[in-house]
């Protein structure tokens, strides 16, 4: 006998427009912070009413590298570490595109570290959302350039003795014009920071401290993703404008969050146009993109 089943209520999800719903469920673990980062990004885009056709997302490799695959804009899942130069090519060919790199700490700061500092130096007009979970997650929990001292990783089985990078300090000293750090707990402030970064002409960086429940926290016996959220709640101090030299993160120690840098500097394309106008005078047609 066929039973009549009432059709489930199919209300559109507010993020339907921005997500590739045909790819959901995603691959991320329960209580991973990545879902929150995507939500914050989606809300920022929504709030700013950025036309989705003008937005491009580029990711590298790793758990965060998978973000590009779930966002329904022109989206590029590239090679390990190369999201920033790939994004540079997209942006310089079509500066009207809003190009956002969403990738992990290992991808952007280790294998892609050289690209990160040089794109910041050139002030390429892209936004980088760097999700920092303190570990190489997709490959199974190896030490990252951000792993706090003493924290355990599969390739630092007795605890990490390598000094980690302080991402805001690296970003600022390389030339980034906007630098903020929040955690996956600070959804509202994170959303606001992403929105500000998206509006900022030049190289903007938002670091998001995010729980990796499966590898980092399990290996270090510091609980589930939820426990880490509790930890962020109890141990984050908001210090806008803090000196970025003082933003190192110790193992299970206080984390300083906030907006640290928000400054003005001509972007790569602006510098190029200003300079060539000076050199060539009227003969120079200001560059607005080569793909017509």
């Amino acid at each position: 006998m066929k039973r009549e089943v009432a059709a489930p209520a199919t209300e559109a999800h507010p993020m339907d427009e921005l997500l590739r719903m045909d790819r959901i469920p995603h691959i991320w673990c329960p209580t991973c912070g990545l879902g929150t980062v995507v939500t914050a990004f989606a809300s920022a885009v929504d709030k700013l009413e950025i036309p989705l056709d003008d937005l491009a997302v580029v990711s590298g490799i790793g758990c965060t590298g998978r973000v590009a695959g779930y966002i329904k804009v022109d989206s590029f899942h590239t090679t390990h570490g190369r999201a920033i130069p790939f994004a540079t090519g997209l942006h310089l060919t079509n500066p009207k595109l809003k190009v956002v790199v969403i990738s992990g700490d290992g991808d952007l700061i280790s294998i892609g570290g050289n690209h990160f500092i040089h794109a910041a130096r050139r002030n390429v007009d892209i936004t980088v959302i760097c999700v920092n979970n303190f570990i190489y997650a997709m490959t199974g929990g190896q030490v990252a350039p951000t792993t706090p001292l003493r924290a355990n990783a599969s390739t630092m089985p007795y605890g990490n003795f390598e000094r980690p990078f302080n991402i805001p300090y690296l970003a600022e000293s390389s030339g980034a014009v906007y630098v903020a750090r929040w955690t996956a707990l600070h959804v509202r402030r994170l959303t606001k920071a992403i929105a500000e970064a998206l509006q900022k002409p030049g190289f903007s960086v938002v670091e998001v401290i995010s729980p990796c429940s499966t590898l980092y926290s399990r290996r270090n016996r510091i609980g589930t993703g939820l426990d880490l959220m509790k930890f962020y709640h109890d141990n984050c101090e908001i210090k806008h404008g803090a000196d970025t030299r003082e933003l190192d993160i110790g193992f299970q120690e206080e984390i300083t969050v906030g907006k640290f840098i928000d400054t003005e500097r001509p972007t790569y394309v602006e510098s190029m146009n200003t300079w060539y106008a000076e050199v060539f005078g009227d003969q120079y047609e200001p560059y607005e993109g080569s793909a017509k």
Partner: protein
Amino acid sequence: MTADPKGVLTGEHYLDGDHAAAEGALAAGCRFFAGYPITPSTEVAERIAARFPRVGGVFVQMEDELGSMAAILGGAWAGAKSMTVTSGPGFSLMMENLGLGVMMEVPTVLVNVQRGGPSTGLPTLPGQADIMQARWGSHGDYEIIAVSPSSPQEAFDHTIMAFNFAEKYRVPTMVMMDECVGHMTEKVVIPEAEEIEIVPRKMYDGPKTEYLPYEPDEDMVPWMVRAGDGYRFHTTGLTHDEKGYPVMNSKCQEKCVHRLVDKIRSRIDEIVVLEEDGVEGADVVVVSYGITSRVTVPAVERARKDGINVGSLRLVTIWPFPENRIRELSRKIKTFIVPEINYGQLCYEVERCAAGNAETVLVPHGGGWVHDPGDIYDAIKKGAK
């Protein structure tokens, strides 16, 4: 379609191969260049840096070759014709994102002005030892297209040819020059823009909701769109389905990678460009490419004066390899002579296709200079016996 006159420096010039390749790129419509300085290829980048501001292009000197190759892929996806240039050590670094370009099917051009290797080798002197790296240098299975100019004029012509191949087959295409060609100065004639044939990008303009970025057309090459045009597509270096979504199983791998290989392998004869001289009815055929094909000329002439029935087969395209032509000739001739500035690379392809029907003799050269034509002549003489 013909060239955009803006980039075409019509007239007679006295240029070296590096500068000529830069002009070829400009004529082909290249407007995004990302590169990193490396001898003996730097002059290509320098000329582009000087010329681009006047033609509406963007030149960016990247932090390394990894970034250069990644950037030109991004540039191509945003709609530009893009290019990079390098030599030995840089070529090795570019292999990473060359693979991404193959997987994402990005039309772009990579010029390699070959020097002696391995490693830092001979920065200022010629080599032809990256031939197999051009074919197999990135991991995984794929097919690639590469051309090999032997003069500044050809550096110009073949760079345009490379852009056209890249667009037609949606594959990164290589211009495998060498230091000799890069640094020799000769007359280069740049024709009028309307005489330069340009293959336009295969752009999709159907309904946005129906676009599948990796749905092959009849020629196995999918239609392309530009970032920012509203298609909101996805592309990845992972094995993917027609939507461009990653699918991790062997069935999808077979479909995806087989097509990448087949779109070129099944059309080798359509791609291959050869120059033949006295090959029909010959006993011995010299197979050569790049600068070595010019060194071959006096050797062949001398052998002919001796009454030896020798032909010359010059590969303009080195990849894909002209399997059918070599097979066909191997049944008619006695010996293939293969001079190359390495210890045996393309000669193994000749040997494979000759399959024992004809003998294959390598005339090696370690690099740093070109062959003495006398060595090629000696090999021809021996091969005719």
